[in-house]
């Protein structure tokens, strides 16, 4: 899968940094996640835990 991603990135000529900095795309992702999921308290707790672990 990673090879395939690299193939697509090379062909499109898009760097990872450029894509990741696009806040609108991140917002779209957030919107999708929030609305589709109707995020439960359990998921929030898990996200919080993961966030704390990352730091």
């Amino acid at each position, binding site marked *: 899968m990673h090879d395939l991603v690299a*193939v697509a990135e090379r062909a*499109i000529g898009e760097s990872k940094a450029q894509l990741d900095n696009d806040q609108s795309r991140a917002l779209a992702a957030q919107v999708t996640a929030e609305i589709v*999921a*109707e*995020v439960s308290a359990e998921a929030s707790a898990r*996200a919080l835990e993961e966030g704390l672990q990352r730091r």
Partner: protein
Amino acid sequence: MDDPALMPLQVRDRLARMARVDPGGLARLFSLSSLEGDLPARLLHALHAALAHRTIAHARANVPWYREHPEYSRWALPEGYPGRPSELLAGLPVLDRTLVAAAPARFAAEDTALGALGHTSGSTGTPLPVRRSVEEAEFTAAYFAHLSEPLARGGRRPISLNLPNAYHGTPLRLPAPGLSLSSGVTDDLLLAETARAVTARYDLPGYGTHVEYLSGLVNHVLLLTGHLLEQGSDPGAVGLRGVSVAGGTAAPHWRRFLRAAWGCPVTDRFTLTEVVGGASRCRRCDLFHLDPHVFGEVLEPGSSAPVAEGPGRLVLTAFHPFVQMQPMVRYDTGDLVMRFDNGCGPALAFEFLGKHGRAVSLEHRGRRRWLLFPAELNAVLAELPDVRAVEWASNVRSVHDRTLGGLPYARVRLDASCRPPELLVEVELRYGPHFHSARAEEVGARVAGRLRASAGTALAELEAGGAVRLRVACVPPGSLPEPALKL
């Protein structure tokens, strides 16, 4: 591979046949496909084709209904060339809710473990049970976590407030990009807590100091906004970065109101329980764009002919591995949409017109001609404070206007026994129209004008030709039955 133009086909063929799809890799590919340009657009089509292959292969091997229908066995990716998006699933049966609801067990995959049972709201008929597997919940959680990763960078993760939708059974658990607070508006205690949560300041290491995103059903978000204003609070002072609404039709008037009240962009979501995903209204063209991981078609009502531009029924396919336990291949959503080929991105662009069964059409000279779309009627009625709306939050005593977000009282009938046939639109006012007759006439004229100008209908043309007559009648409060829950 040196030639970038060959990339989409290579991605399609390798992704279609790899043993396991990595959610992070797929999120990355879909992000690349959402960039501007021809190559990303072709990548999107390649991803759809590859996932269609995986979806159909899985369904015909593991799901009784698909196994018993030979059309799915015959389906194959075109060898050596990408094919056209409109041809991807052509020839496969189109499913509808009645078919699935009649025998839901035949649509359940045998290779997955039941993780959650959801259902459609039942607002337009018998609720359809929606089975979700443990495996698909894990995949979608990982996929959305990767998609929202950039939002967690920069040392400060956002706090969001979600007003959960309790109308669809067990929620699908997905990770929030930051800290997701959960509250509601459907009783006084909940609403007070929500008002406190959205206006509070927080001191949580690693997180923002206030709620930055608000999401929920459109009527819930409207009620909360109205409540804050009634209490003298300025929603704009909260400092939200985004509001997203779903679960109903957000008329343009209410989208503008929310944008002005909160001082931030409003994302209007089109979603349905049967498919994980949906569409978001684009900030550039103001139309809905399908989420990249969902495949959409617009077909002629009554046939499977594709519609390139104009009104048609929206047919969606949920791809494996996003949906695994109850695959929906070419599922007729029951919704009419207006398809646009406006060049704004590669995703299917459309405007929601309302439920197919609630739109009004007339057979004229052997052709179906549309006369009225429910969403257009709702859009004009939402602009008119004279029109009575459903007091959907009648038990929430701390709110003075409990109609915010409620659908307007209106009834539409086509009387074919008249010559010419009469399209009667009854609109219930908050007052007796005889007490303010000039104003009632203005309301009627405005509604009629908008309906005649409604894109995609032939009302004005047929009226001019004497083939139909429109009459808008304003009626006193209490005259009409409660409107349906959805347009």
